[in-house]
């Protein structure tokens, strides 16, 4: 009884330091525990809530682990065919320029099957935000090699590790799009620590704010883990990501607007 009273005392508005955003639905996330998708979803929705643009935002879900993103984000969303989200986003933004349009895509979606749509949306300088979650593997289909799989990294289709002679080299899509004149802001972030989550949220906020300027694509890569696909515990996968993914996919801004 006394304990309950204490809890109620603590639950005063002025004591609240964190509250789950209303822009996430009550549906339980379908992601594996430890996966970066849930955090990335949350911070995108926090940004939308903080900017007060729920009624002006249209999101596009990919094919891959985040195919059901529309189940969790409480905004109007479209589910695209595999890799085609930038084509959808292009049309939406050109038809309703006053709306905020973003695509949410994984590495197989954005950097393999959807390479043409990605490059050309970036090259045309579509005034959209692209969120690119890169975990170096096809998670949903059971851990096959992705375009971003590192050399030597094992997957269900590279059981002896990726060999560049046989399977080619990992693709740095983010560096590639940064070279195009149609991209305005290009950055690579991660969500494995509280500090990184804050940085990524800031980047996503910028990537949405920049749509007001009409200057081209804002592109945010989130390097993430896939503990199921990598066959590690969540903690081990985060450590592996820091030790192996970050050296090849270094975090930080790649292209920043001249202020």
């Amino acid at each position: 009884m006394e304990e309950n009273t204490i809890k109620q005392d603590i639950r005063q508005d002025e004591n609240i330091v964190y509250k789950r955003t209303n822009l996430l639905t009550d549906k339980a996330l379908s992601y594996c525990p430890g996966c970066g998708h849930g955090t990335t979803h949350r911070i995108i929705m926090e940004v939308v809530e903080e900017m007060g643009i729920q009624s002006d935002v249209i999101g596009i879900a990919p094919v891959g682990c985040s195919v059901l993103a529309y189940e969790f984000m409480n905004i109007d969303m479209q589910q695209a065919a595999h890799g085609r989200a930038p084509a959808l986003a292009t049309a939406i933004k050109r038809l309703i320029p006053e709306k905020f349009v973003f695509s949410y895509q994984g590495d197989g979606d954005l950097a393999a099957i959807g390479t043409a749509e990605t490059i050309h949306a970036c090259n045309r300088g579509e005034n959209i935000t692209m969120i690119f979650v890169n975990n170096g593997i096809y998670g949903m289909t059971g851990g096959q090699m992705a375009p971003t799989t590192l050399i030597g990294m094992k997957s269900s289709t590279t059981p002896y590790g990726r060999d560049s002679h046989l399977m080619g080299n990992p693709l740095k899509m983010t560096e590639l799009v940064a070279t195009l004149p149609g991209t305005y802001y290009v950055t690579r972030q991660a969500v494995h620590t509280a500090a990184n989550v804050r940085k990524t949220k800031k980047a996503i906020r910028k990537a949405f704010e920049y749509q007001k300027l009409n200057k081209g694509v804002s592109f945010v890569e989130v390097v993430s883990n896939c503990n199921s696909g990598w066959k590690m515990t969540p903690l081990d996968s985060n450590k592996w990501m820091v030790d192996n993914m970050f050296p090849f996919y270094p975090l930080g801004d790649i292209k920043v607007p001249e202020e």
Partner: protein
Amino acid sequence: MKEIKLMKGNEAIAEAAIRAGTDGYFGYPITPQSEVMEYLTAESPHKRTGMVVLQAESETASINMLYGGASCGMRVMTSSSSPGISLMQEGISYMAGAELPCLIVNVVRGGPGLGTIQPAQSDYFQSTKGGGHGDYNIIVLAPASVQEMYDFVELSYELAFKYRNPVLILSDGAIGQMMEKVEIGEQKQRRTLDQIIKETPWATTGKTSDRERNIITSLDLDSSKQEILNWKLQKKYQAMRDNEVRYEKINCDDAEYIFVAYGTSSRICQKSIQLAREKGIKVGLFRPITLFPFPKDAIFEMAGQVKGMLSVEMSAGQMIEDIQLAVNGKVKVEHFGRVGGIIPTPEEVVNALEQKIIGG
């Protein structure tokens, strides 16, 4: 006063698109339909109506741009020719699954593969039987004149939004390229976003506080729900069969034989009728205007009147399968066609009638 213009079929499609209040055209160049996008870009419709015209990086991108625009309740269209339409099949299947309205124009050329740039009617199966994956149908309109190229644009939007389904205009290189007089309609105003929100409450135009979020998807991982969606789609296709069948009968009243033909072939057959009737052969033309839904009841009815039917197609024999199903063995049905981009002559068609149906 009516406005009359001399236009190519492809130009008629483009002008009709602007006048019908199209919100967005997305396309990729391919012969023999490139005039559609050329005409649109030359007309600067963004100045005339605010219409968006964008040359995409591929037909795959074009059809997915339609998906994005249609999901917002917009009037969107693309045009292409056979190989490009093949590339779009994935997107068409997704749009059928997500129940999205759009207009696709196929100015058919001969195939398979890169084939030829000359006219053909060899995409009948692809158009009417579902060229993409899954159980679905799209409405297919077959124009036989430049005027119909023009008129079917507005009609397509009407049907696409009525059923929330893609509509295909199945034309060919001859109708796309030939010039005829066209009566031009009034300029329709593009709908405002407020009107679109009112007319298409399902569209993703931004979630406002007075409604639940809108989701456009063709996915349901729960098979019991996916089955319900499939039956709902089938019910819709049945409603199309019940309500949207269109066809034309020419010289059929006293006919002992009929040609069944659409598009360019039906134009050839009209000349063949003249030649045949000069010889005393009473032949008429049954012209399906909708290829899906196919006018099978009307053809079955004709089977009670005539002694035989000749399916005249610029293909190796595709529509004939639907005619045979409709006739169900009641009368003789044969096929005559030229392929690879060759248009049959009226004389060849009469010869085929005499040899395969009358004498056969």
